[in-house]
Every structure is written in C-alpha cells, then in structure tokens.
C-alpha cells in the first residue's frame, strides 16, 4: 500500500480492501496498543510516585497476580473465552482491594506495608496459578501462556469501545493527582504538614492506578516493563514535577507499546507484544540505571 493509498483509505476512499485493512485491522489495533500503553505508563508513574519506589510498576500491588489467577483459572477450566477479560478485571480490582486492606490493618497506610502486602499476595496467587497451569491440558496451557505474556493479537474495536472510556476517564482523573504526588515526594510528615491527607490521597492514587492497570490487563494480558521503564525515561526528560511526569508517561507508554507492537509483527511469526517489551525493556532499563549511576 502506498502513502497515497493509505491516505485515501483513511478518508474512506479508494479501494475497499485497503479501507478494510486500515479501518478494521491496523487502526483499531494501533488504538488498542495506545490505550493499553497509556494506561500502563500512567499507572506505573502513579505507583512509583505514591510508593516512592522506582521499582514499582502497575503490577506491584498484586494486580497481575489477581488478574492472572482468575484468567488462568478461567482458561484452564474452559470457561468461555470472551468472559476472560471481565474475569481478569474483577480479579485485578479485588486483589488491589485486598492488598489495600492488608496495608491498612494496624492503622495508617504505610508505603512499606502496601509493598509487602502486594509481594505476599502476589507470591501466594502466583503459586496457585502455577499449580493450575501444571494441571491443565496442553492446548489450554498455550493460550494461558499467551495471555500471561501479553498480546494484542486480534484486539480491535470491541476492546477499545469497552475499555477505552474507562481508561480515558481514569487518565484525566490521574492528572488531577499530580499535586498530592508532588507533596508525597517530600515525605509523609512534610506532606501532611502541607495539608495532604495521606490515607485519602493514597486511596485515590491506588484506586486510579488499579483501574488503569486492570483495564490494560483485561485488554491485552500481562504486558510487562512498559509501566516500569516509561516513567523512568519520562523523569529523565521532564524532571520530577508530576504535573509533567503523569501526562508524559501516558503519552510515552502509548508510543512505546505501539512501537513494540509494530516490531512484534515484523517477523514471519508474530511474537506476543509482551515478549517484545520485555526484550527491549530490560536492556533499556539497565541503560537507564547506568546513566543514573553516572549522574549521581
């Protein structure tokens, strides 16, 4: 397809086969990649800020484990495939609520307790998930693994229409959390001295981040590294003001995942996009760490 034909097809002109390819195959998948990428990038930026921990990613609060457990259970037990995204979403949100409840027990919502609760729940659910996988039929393992690595294969308008609005609203809500994030960055005591309610802001940030991550997971499975690496890269570019970090992380995540998805389709066999992000993300992350070490 030439540039001219592409341009025509975008405006619903020219050959109908080109129009179909653009409007029904390429464009919806690009938009799906952007929605998922933006959700992951924003979620990672929110959680890294709230937990003051550069190792935080959208899945640190147990979201991957919860979504994974429900999804794998559904796949291995042979539940209708179309229900898997909804199940994964519910699993993710339920796990985030569980982790927050554990973090809240004993008063306050301390960063350490949230992280520890997330790690504990993740490893427990992970163990159950592995057991389920080992017991499953071969054919189902294949599709379960595909989901665990994360793939955009076959995603299009239905997913964008179902999940897109939630992601859009959450992205806007997330941008409004820039101020509490900037203050939380100063430490708990100074942040509360400046009029931030620690519990309320951590609840709001966690809720928005979980909604975003759960939406992304329900669309494309567990795509790793985007939510971890993108906020780091953005911070190198725009500094440490969350009024800039948050929107830029969403935009950055959208572009990175779109690019990764494009790369995943270049070869003769389509790779799951999650494998591409991990393959690209790991060296990039090491490079970022190296650069940061040099600066400091």
């Amino acid at each position, binding site marked *: 397809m030439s540039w001219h034909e592409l341009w025509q097809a975008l405006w619903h002109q020219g050959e109908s086969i080109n129009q179909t390819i653009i409007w029904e195959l390429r464009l919806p998948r690009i938009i799906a990649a952007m929605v998922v990428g933006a959700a992951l990038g924003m979620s990672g930026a929110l959680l890294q800020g709230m937990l003051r921990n550069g190792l935080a990613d959208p899945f640190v609060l147990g979201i991957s484990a919860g979504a994974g457990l429900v999804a794998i259970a559904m796949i291995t037990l042979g539940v209708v495939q179309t229900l898997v995204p909804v199940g994964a979403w519910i699993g993710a949100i339920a796990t985030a609520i569980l982790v927050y409840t554990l973090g809240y027990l004993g008063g306050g919502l301390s960063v350490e307790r949230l992280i520890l609760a997330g790690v504990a729940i993740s490893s427990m659910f992970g163990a159950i998930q592995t057991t389920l996988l080992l017991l499953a039929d071969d054919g189902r393992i294949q599709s379960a693994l595909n989901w665990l690595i994360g793939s955009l294969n076959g995603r299009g308008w239905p997913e964008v229409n179902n999940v897109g609005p939630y992601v859009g609203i959450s992205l806007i809500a997330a941008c409004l959390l820039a*101020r509490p994030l900037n*203050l939380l960055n100063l430490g708990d005591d*100074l942040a509360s*001295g400046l*009029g931030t309610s620690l519990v309320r802001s951590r609840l709001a940030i966690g809720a928005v981040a979980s909604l975003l991550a759960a939406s992304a997971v329900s669309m494309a499975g567990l795509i790793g590294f985007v939510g971890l690496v993108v906020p780091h890269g953005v911070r190198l570019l725009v500094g*440490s003001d969350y009024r800039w970090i948050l929107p830029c992380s969403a935009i950055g995540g959208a572009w990175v995942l779109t690019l990764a998805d494009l790369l995943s389709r270049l070869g003769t066999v389509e790779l799951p996009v999650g494998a591409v992000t991990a393959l690209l993300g790991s060296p990039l992350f090491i490079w970022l760490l190296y650069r940061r070490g040099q600066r400091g």
Partner: protein
Amino acid sequence: MEDYQEYNLSDALLEAQNLVGGYGKQTILQNVSLSLHKGEWLSLVGANGSGKSTLLKLCSRILTPQIGTVLLDGKAIHQQPANVVARQLAILPQQQTIPSGLTVRQLVSLGRTPHQPWWQWELNAEDRQMVETAIAQTQLTALSDRPVEQLSGGERQRAFLALTLAQNPQVLLLDEPTTFLDLHHQLELLELLKTLNQEHQLSIITVLHDINLAMRYSDRLAMLKQGVMKAIGRSDDVITPKNLRQVFDVEAVTVITPVGLQICLLSPSHTLVKSRDPTVT
C-alpha cells in the same frame, strides 16, 4: 525576655489541652497541655523518646490524639480540613526526604499548595511573591535555580525552612532544626528564626537538644520527661540542676553570665547519675 505569666491563657494562638497520644495504639504522651501566644517562641527540651516530636506532630495534625484537643486560634485543628490548618500552621519535620531533581524554587513553591484551589495549576502573582520573599528571607536567592540535592546541609535546611515560610503560617513548628548543622549554621538558622519571630510576629515552637541554645533564643521552655510535662516556664525556672538531673540524668549547674545570659554547664565530673534505663529509647 517576657514573663510567661503575663500572658492571659485565653489569648493563646495555639493551645494543646490534655493531650494523650502516640503512634497507632501506642501511647507516648500522657496528658500534656501547652499554650503558645502570638509572637512567642517556645522550646521543647527533654531526653530522646520523651515525646517532643510526638507533641509537635499532634499539634500539627500529623497525628491524631487519643484524648485531648489542639486549638488553633480557638478552633480544634483535628476537626478542620488539613489544608485549612496548613494555611495557618507549618511544620518542619526532623528529617526531610530530598526529592531528586527539584530546584530550590520548585521546592519552595510547593509551600503554596495549601493556599491553592485544586484547579489552580500554576502559581498566581501572590504565590510567586510569597515564594520569592521566602527565598530572599532565607538568603537563597543566588541558589534558587539549583537542585536541592546539590546544596550543603545548611543550605538544604534553609530551603526547607523557606518552603514552610511560603506557607505564610502564623505558627511554625520545627523539630530539631539544627541537628545536622555545624555550630555556625546552627546559629545562623536560629538568628533567622529570631528575625522572623521579632519582625513578623511569627509564633514558633522548636524542639532543641542544645539547652543553651534553647535558653538563649526562646521566650519559654517546656521540659518533657517520659511523656509528661515536667516543667514549663521561663528558662531559669525550667533549667535547674534538679530538673536536669531528673530528666537527663546529668549533674549540671546553671550560671548567669556577666551579660545576663543564663547558661547551663555540665558539672566538671561530667558523670552520669546512673546508667540509663535501656527500655527508655
């Protein structure tokens, strides 16, 4: 130095009444009352773990008391929204997290947050003026575009002080503001606070470990021992050999210098009265 008895209790700007509280279910303070008047400087002294920081945190709404109330200008602070309290009262905690990448001006600008409605993203003219004033008062104008992490200890402490000044508070609480500073920078910071206290009628409570500095700079002292108010009043009433022995387990004498300044000297033997109770941290 003013006599604290001249103050009428009813015109206290900040008043803590019968506070019982601590972290979570743990109780550190047992029934402590305190009042701070407009333009007054009060220092809290006492051994480690005696509840000085807890008292400051209760008075600044960081912690909620189990029993008792804190009144700011006659209104209970724990019944008001946090940002409303933060417009009148600022606290500089003992240890600061140094945010990476923030310049001094960006840091100080965050002090304006309690005054900004949620839809206001940028500083308005008044905010900007307050920020610049705070930077100038703390003599950081030349450093205002430098990242905070590149500053020296004394400069950092001044930058965080500027942040609290940008809050434009009536009451400023400082938890061991001089701890990590050398002698010169300790005096520099306290002189700056003295200027703010005298010229701008800023009411101040400091936690200070150096009793001589506390006596030199503050109008009144409050001495805490294991969560109980041991003594409160003018320095010569509070810093007595008896109180020092009971609170710090040290033998000490207090001397009035020829210029009329009271100082406290550890006895030449410098002996501890008894070994410290290891359960008291």
